């Protein structure tokens, strides 16, 4: 009997966790980035409370994704986290700031207090999205690794135009996703404002996305070769564009939930595009491709991957069950009550 390849299973599972993170924390980072575009205190509170019960759980996807990467591919975890030292420290500070801003903001009535935490929330969300994108961009483009798989580049080298464009694309993607989420959660005047943003954000995102793909073909030569060998990737990209274009249609018909699902699917398809093209690499080395970390030389032992698979088989269904029930309990339009933020 052929045993399933545990390394491939864990490549997929780590991918699922980070996709879950992008899909879920993506919308609350997006809501954060949009926070300063509404002026009224009541509207800003609506923004905060629309994500109030769920942002915390969404961030757990990042923590668990990081933990799973550590457990399944410790070499990749160590290389990326020590190599991206300063960007990750900035990411952590941004995530801290936005998390406590949500908690602190509405505790006091003073205008300056709320303004300060609104800016912290918004800037924290924006910088987080940007840095996640920049990190992702560098992974796609490849980073210099030495023979021991240690990062051999510099901080400024990480801020290359290609990765910055990926950062901006991520900000726009999350902002679009957040705006669509808000159409499900708001009503009346605020819904009109938010609905007005959606088509524009979709336009910005698609423009950036096309630009990024073009840039990829120029900047990252191996992508074209891989895609030639794996033509089905084209289908995924095409489906991705179609599903994004479906979003304004759903909004127009007043089906905000379908619009949101489309946006989630778009995220899944984008991650799938990446995963299918990148396989079997974990961290691509450029220019010395031979020093790359793959799902085999970066992995834990088969024994640990097996143990972790059992943990995942027990844990993931539970996680999905209570994530789904929490979203179900808090479904529908957000209302402000005494226990709100």
């Amino acid at each position: 009997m052929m045993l399933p390849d545990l390394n491939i299973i864990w490549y997929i599972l780590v991918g699922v966790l980070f996709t879950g993170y992008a899909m879920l924390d993506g919308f609350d980072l997006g809501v954060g980035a949009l926070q300063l575009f509404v002026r009224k205190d009541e509207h800003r509170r609506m923004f905060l409370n629309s994500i109030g019960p769920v942002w915390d759980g969404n961030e757990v996807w990042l923590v668990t994704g990081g933990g799973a990467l550590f457990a399944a591919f410790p070499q990749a975890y160590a290389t990326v986290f020590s190599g991206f030292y300063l960007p990750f420290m900035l990411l952590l500070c941004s995530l801290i700031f936005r998390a406590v801003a949500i908690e602190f903001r509405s505790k006091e009535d003073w205008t300056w207090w709320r303004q300060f935490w609104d800016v912290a929330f918004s800037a924290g969300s924006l910088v987080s999205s940007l840095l996640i994108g920049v990190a992702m961009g560098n992974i796609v483009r490849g980073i210099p690794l030495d023979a021991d798989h240690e990062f051999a580049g510099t901080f400024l080298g990480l801020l290359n135009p290609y990765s910055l464009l990926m950062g901006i694309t991520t900000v726009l993607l999350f902002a679009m996703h957040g705006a669509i989420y808000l159409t499900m959660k708001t009503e009346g005047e605020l819904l009109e404002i938010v609905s007005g943003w959606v088509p524009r954000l979709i336009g910005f995102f698609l423009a950036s996305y096309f630009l990024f793909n073009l840039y990829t073909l120029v900047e990252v030569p191996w992508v074209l070769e891989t895609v030639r060998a794996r033509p089905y990737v084209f289908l995924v990209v095409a489906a991705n564009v179609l599903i994004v274009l479906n979003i304004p249609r759903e909004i127009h018909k007043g089906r905000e939930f379908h619009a949101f699902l489309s946006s989630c699917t778009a995220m899944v398809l984008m991650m799938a595009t990446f995963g299918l093209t990148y396989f079997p690499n974990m961290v691509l080395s450029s220019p010395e491709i031979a020093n790359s970390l793959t799902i085999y030389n970066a992995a834990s032992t088969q024994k640990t991957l097996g143990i972790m698979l059992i943990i995942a088989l027990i844990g993931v269904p539970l996680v999905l069950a209570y994530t789904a029930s929490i979203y179900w309990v808090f479904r529908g339009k957000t209302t402000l009550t005494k226990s709100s933020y």
Partner: protein
Amino acid sequence: MTVEILARVQFAFTAAIHYLYPPLSIGLGIMLVMMEGLWLKTGNPLFHNMARFWTRIFALTFAIGVATGIVMEFEFGTNWATYSRFVGDIFGSALAAEGIFAFFLESGFLALLLFGWNRVGPRMHFFATCMVAFGAHFSAVWIVVANSWMQTPAGYHLETMSGELLAPDHIVTPADLTTVRAVVDDFWAMVFNPSTIDRLTHVVLGAWMAGAFLVVSISAFYLLRNRHLDFAKASLKVGLGFAAVASILQMISADFTAKGVVRNQPIKLAAIEGVYETVPRTPMTLFGCVNPDTGTVFGPKIPGLLSWLAWGSIDRPVVGLRQLPSDAFLRAHHPEAAQGEMPAIRKSYWPNVPLVFQFYHAMIIVGVAMLVLVIVACLFWWRGWLFDTSLPLTRWLLAALVFSVLGPQIANQAGWFTAEMGRQPWIVYELLKTSDSLSRVVTANQVTTSLVLFGLVYALLFAMFVFLLTRKIQHGPDPEEDSKEMPESWKALIRTTPRA
């Protein structure tokens, strides 16, 4: 400063700040379960109203706990990449299990706990509260498993990256670190390594005390101020009862933990007690200071007490630092060294004795003080004096209880500093040195930059937390929360009321 020192300072700083919050989440979580449970059982609305107020305090500590916790998970990779490569096969699974089993449970049901009062019935809400508390404990389980493995590694073997088995007595050298790693061979032996149970019990009880004394402190404050009396009395009773149980159990757990250290980490035990010479009837120093140059300890001593606590017999000596680590260990690790160099080499395997001695004794002294305080308070309660604020003695006691909130926090911090500094120079006890575990690509400048960044952010965060907590305490429960009646506005929100 060297990268090693900077990275250690950064980890200690971010972990110490983080560890102010999770014990409160764990301890208050249990308190919330008790309050809501009492409400469901007795139908007395006072308990419901209490749970409402303490939930808001809980939310504040929880949010900062989560925010500062993400940092910890990243730091293994950012600052300790070589460590992560070496132990990822073992250590990573505990962290991943914590995420998937504990954090999702906590954060998911937290939504119901905080925002679900008017969306689910009281039974479901109680269930959510239980799940949040359970999740918080479960996360303590996995993180203490991971840390205990660093203290008393078990259930693993060493092999090369290409899978060749190494001898069990293989000594890891810095040159090995690109080719050798520790891998799991018995998952449950790793989880239940020799110190897991002792240390988990000790940590959880410390967390219970942190939560219980926070409730005690705030309630005593209201009594002294003559505010929210019904609310304060009921909260104080619940808090004090729980604090008493936790404080007594903690003494028993401390004894077990120390006995475990005697057997598993004799160097750490000798260092924290300041034992240099191996003598029968080893005395215990109650407090004092260590002179590391002469190897003497100044302070009141009780003859034979340490021997008795460690071995149950006053005649059996506790091995002192002059014999630790053993000659066999030193010869194995330094086959080239001349006999004359041995004393200096031996010293390099000791932690910073004066410092760990002080941390350890601070923990013990504060722990005993908490126990005495709680016993006195229970005596007052039993005699019916505890709530009679016209008595001067009662006022003094309540004032002490107001400050008691600091006690468990100090003891918890001091305990962790003892545990972690006492393990030095090892990051994984007698397997991997801290100085060999750093990220090879991270420079001192980078660590300094991030240390300054975290210093500023955490200072602001801590100031805000203290400010908001004081404001919440000053404001107190809402007028309707400290009454014995269920407020009208909430009756409508509660879909079903429990049987009285």
